[in-house]
């Protein structure tokens, strides 16, 4: 699905979300803003934990909020970090479950760094179709 979206607005919401990050261990603030097909935007931040595996990234926080609210049709996600970092492999895997060609906006608090897509970041993804043999 090709949909128009306001990359600047999404990026701005991701920047704001990053300010809410709970990152006492890494100090690495991440914010995400996820746009759904009906125009709703869900935001998320990374939430760290003394037990590192319990940490959830900003992207998955936003997706969890959206899916929990009944949304599964996603158009774009903006991700804000100080150094224009990309989504980690876990988040790429989770995004792929719902939209393998999702538009991804990489931004810093100052400006959008670039726009890409999930399939460009995660070529030949392992997806739900691999388990359809059951």
């Amino acid at each position, binding site marked *: 699905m090709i949909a128009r979206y306001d990359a600047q607005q999404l990026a701005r919401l991701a920047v704001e979300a990053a300010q809410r990050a709970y990152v006492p261990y890494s100090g690495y603030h991440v914010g995400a803003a996820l746009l759904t097909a009906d125009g709703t935007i869900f935001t998320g931040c990374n939430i760290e934990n003394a037990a590192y595996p319990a940490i959830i990234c900003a992207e998955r926080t936003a997706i969890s909020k959206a899916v929990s609210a009944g949304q599964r049709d996603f158009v774009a996600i903006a991700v804000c970090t100080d*150094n224009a*970092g990309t989504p*980690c*492999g*876990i988040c790429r*895997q989770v995004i792929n479950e719902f939209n393998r060609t999702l538009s991804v906006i990489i931004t810093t608090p100052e400006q959008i760094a670039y726009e890409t897509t999930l399939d460009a970041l*995660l070529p*030949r*993804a392992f997806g739900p179709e691999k388990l359809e043999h059951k």
Partner: protein
Amino acid sequence: MDFDRHALAQRALDARRNAYAPYSDYPVGSALLTTSGAIYTAASVENADYPATICAPNGAFLNAVSEGQRDFVALAIATRDGDPPCGICRQVITEFAPNLTILLVNESGTIEELPFAAVMARPFGTHPA
């Protein structure tokens, strides 16, 4: 570093037989070759608590790193159809072996070889912007 593709693939196929996959019925085996020539294998190990599942490639890295190994040459992954690794495993590979050679092996033993970079663009971790 040259290595025996078929031997590594066979170790992954052998490891796949030990997979514990009662929920997905999707058994995976993996074999990880270090620069010292050692091979560490693992199978996918599922759990009723799905998030507690550990993939085969991830398991092979856990085995190797726990034994003091951090220099890797190649990773063979055996599945029914020669499927690529999931995003979690790609993140683990990014940490230790961004230049790894990947062998995708199907249950007939057919091997597809590709560089890790072919399945992980702009990785998070090793290449800060």
